[in-house]
């Protein structure tokens, strides 16, 4: 069973989470449900710091033994930090998707885009629907 989705953040339909720091920046990762679907994460491709991405652009790639999945930017902005620990320990995403397994930190281009994201409750509903 997936861990509960924290209510202190927002979610995309592509299974990313966004934690708004309230200072124009946000932390982004993938959900526990996403890591469960991927299993066995063995490689994470991180973007360069300073890269600018639009909402829905691929921002990172997460690979399991069997497959590659793009991580899409849930909101547009500039990459200001990446989780370097994932280079050595990609399994941090499996172990703690909502914490130690964060992927990038962004400076938001338009905080208004946060309004397009889902609440934890709405995201849970989406996951339930996908299972059927």
């Amino acid at each position, binding site marked *: 069973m997936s861990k509960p989705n924290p209510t202190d953040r927002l979610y995309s339909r592509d299974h990313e989470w966004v934690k708004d720091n309230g200072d124009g920046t946000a932390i982004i990762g993938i959900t526990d449900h996403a890591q469960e679907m991927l299993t066995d994460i063995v490689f994470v*491709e991180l973007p360069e710091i300073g890269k600018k991405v639009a909402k829905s652009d691929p921002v990172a790639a997460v690979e399991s*033994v069997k497959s590659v999945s793009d991580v899409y930017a849930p909101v547009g902005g500039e990459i200001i930090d990446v989780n370097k620990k994932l280079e050595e320990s990609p399994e941090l995403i499996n172990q703690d998707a909502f914490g130690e397994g964060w992927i990038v930190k962004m400076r938001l281009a338009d905080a208004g885009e946060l309004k397009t994201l889902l609440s934890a409750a709405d995201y849970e509903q989406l996951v339930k629907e996908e299972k059927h």
Partner: protein
Amino acid sequence: MKKTPLYEKHIAQKAKIIDFGGWAMPVQYTNVIDEHKATRGAAGLFDICHMGEIEVEGPQALDLLQLVLTRNLADQTIGQVKLSALLNEEGGIIDDLTVYKLDENSYMLVTNATPKDRDWQWINLIWRSKGFDCSLKDISDTMGKLDLQGPRSEEILQRLTEANLKTLRFYHFCESQVVGFPAIISRSGYTGEDGFEIYAAGNIIGNIWDKLMIAGAQSGLKPAGLGARDTLRLEAGMMLNGQDMTESVSPLEVPYSWIVDANKEFVGKTALMARKNSGIGNKLVGIEMTGRGIARHGYKVFHHLREIGIVTSGTFSPTLNKAIGLAFVDMAYSAPDTEITVAIRNTMTEAKIVKLPFYKREK
């Protein structure tokens, strides 16, 4: 999708099911790495009921097989297994299959799942055109198959059979029983480990599966899916039909020259020899990523800026803890230690050509 007799067991185990060539097969029960490591360290049990089996019987059974297969089977003994290739007229590989000599004039061919119907039609066509005195029977639907693989396979299976497994040599089989049911026990597999391929009737194969799981619990046996089967075979440098080789590829371009016996006639030989004489342009080689990233099927391979080939299989190797793969490359760049790059999404990532296999078990 077609289902094997074990399908309901996979669902009960909460396995993740995928479509493999029209078959609903378990890709993993827990996760690929755990199942892979269980197989290398103890034992893994695989549902392989999707593979095909064809019986060939009669006074001219051997004559037919000699003509349709690349390997010389004249010296095959009863109880021996031989890997061989089935070619088309152009010398391309339709299937790589194993030949079981059950008795004089009696054989079983074990085919890959996806090309089985193609094999069946092609062999029948040749049989009819030559009028060989033998019969062909597709027994795939009634025959079940389990692969028990890993260093503790022998001790597990020995608890359930009267056959003396100690004396059963690699690539040999015996017709015996497992938990009282008639079965063919073959010391062979597709993982690079010691282990057995067990053939028994489809309607009782679930019974054997259950008894093996119970008998193997104390030895660390785990059910393993096609995901682990793929990483295991790739570490062992074994090819996957339909992925590393297709009908446009001949045995001379992949590490299969050794199963071609040019001293006899077989279908596709003329074209194969013509290919050999005109020079082989590409070769299937092992690659290892030296830069960060995992090569995957279909990624392009470069030498400096020149495109020299394509990745056919690529994965993360749980045993070696690095990314490995197989690639078709221009012969001129196929020597071990040649530095190459693989285009992974938008990045050129360093890799090198290495000798196969990536992994060899200690004997």
